[in-house]
């Protein structure tokens, strides 16, 4: 006769918080867009191209890069981007 079994949860017991998306931008003309290079090889060439298109659409572009692609972005960097930019594009992997 097997009674009820209790196990202990091996996970972090986290539930991902559901977050409301920020309002989408109607236009990027006159706004500042940050480009974050995660520091993978050839990221610069790709983001140069993206920057050209953004500037043609009237945006000001600011460039940032992570110290290394193997670690998450430092808090100071994400805070700096959030203060200086209206929008950000992060380049992920190669």
């Amino acid at each position, binding site marked *: 006769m097997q009674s009820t*079994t*209790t*196990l*202990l949860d*091996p996970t*972090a017991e986290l539930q991902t918080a559901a977050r409301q998306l920020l309002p989408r931008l109607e236009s990027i003309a006159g706004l500042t867009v940050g480009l974050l290079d995660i520091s993978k090889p050839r990221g610069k060439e790709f983001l140069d191209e993206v920057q050209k298109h953004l500037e043609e659409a009237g945006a000001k572009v600011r460039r940032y890069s992570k110290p*290394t692609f*193997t*670690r998450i972005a430092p808090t100071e960097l994400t805070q700096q981007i959030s203060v200086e930019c209206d929008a950000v594009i992060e380049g992920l992997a190669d």
Partner: protein
Amino acid sequence: MNQVLETQSANYVLVVKKDCPTCTLIEPVIRSLAKNTALSLKVYVQDDPSFPANLDGVIDDSSLEYSYQAEIEVVPTLIRLSDEGDTQTEESRIYGWDKQQWQSFTRIAELGADLVDFKPGCGSKTQDPGMSEVLALRFGKQILQARSVELAEAEDIMEACYDRGWSDGLPVVPPTPLRVMRMLSGSPRDAAEIVGNAPPDNVPCTIEKIAINAVMAGCKPEYFPVVIASVEAALQDRFCMHGLLCTTYFSAPVMVVNGPITKQIGMNSGINALGQGNRANATIGRALQLIIRNVGGGVPGGIDRACMGNPGKYTYCFAEDESDENWLSLAMDRGFERKDSVISLFAGEGLQPVLDQQSRAPESLAKSMASSLRSVAHRKLFGMADAILVVCSEHRRVFREGGWNKADLRKALFEELMTPGTEVVRGADGIAEGMPEKFKDKMLNKFREDGLHIVTTGGTAGMFSAIIGGWVASGERGSQLTSQKI
């Protein structure tokens, strides 16, 4: 000597079990104490409430609740209580049978006069193997904080663990509260202590969560300190567990354990040390992987983006063979002493043999090994991936007989692996892959400084050393070998 108190009536508590010859010996003593109106006696019996015979009011403690709370270690134990207001507190206790001691403790001169002078007691049932965690769980302070998962009656326990996504693909040991308590007993660390934040979700990882996953991995409690140390190493910034988990490359933590603990817990550093069959090797390596999966949230296809992965992502843990006193261990290379128990984590994968059955001179064998080491990641990529050279026992003998120590081998490998950039730049040998053009006129070494580690393990037969290739993001920009004292 116990002081005799001039109180009107003394209160005593006696804890016994029938299965103890000393308790049965003093059965008449217990009855006479119970009848004595000058004192009050409560008798708790651990196994059979009909014992002592012909005595009313015996308290059945077969749940062992009183014995646990009173921290009884031996039966019989006789406790004298003192009244302080409404509460009774323990004044002192004696255990076993020592006639003189009992007589002075109870202030009854003739107590048990016809019995032997002395007979030691027996172990309390609270001291039975495995009982302390059972009782701590039932009557102790609540130390487990993890969410309880109640399984439905129809659920198969093994399947339930799979269904909840807790497994690496192999069966796990169901983490019941009792098993987790037993795992926690393997370390003095507080269950609630936070060891660090586990990537990739960057969530606090407690000793308790480590214990739960160590249970699931199949660890014994005596392995637990090694598992904790492996987590502490993995969470150091220099190891870069976050990036290692996310990478499309093959790598995962490879663990090398040094020092006396390897013998104490029966780790394998001999025949088949990197293979299957040893519980400690197998389960310690697996525990860290389960922690990253379950606590950190690093699941293959989720944040773990490995193109192929490698079989070592189930488990990759072994002990170093430290039988040659004159050959420095990996831990000693990292600044520890022979007497220290240390776990070192390396971001690596796979095992590439270095077969050399002909070399009898150190010079030849070092060249042989260097030649094979060029294949790490790619023959034309230099300074990118670290490596561990795993020297087998017979190859170590060749070096030792040739008068070489580990430093000599390291120096020879370094010199042998210096290479003109022109040979390995992109396009050389008709192969597009290789070093960028800017290295064309430089002398390059296959490994960055501190990028090649040397370890010894394995059986005594076979001239087969091996290479554990490292992550291509080795060094400060990614992962560096990380050692943690256990």
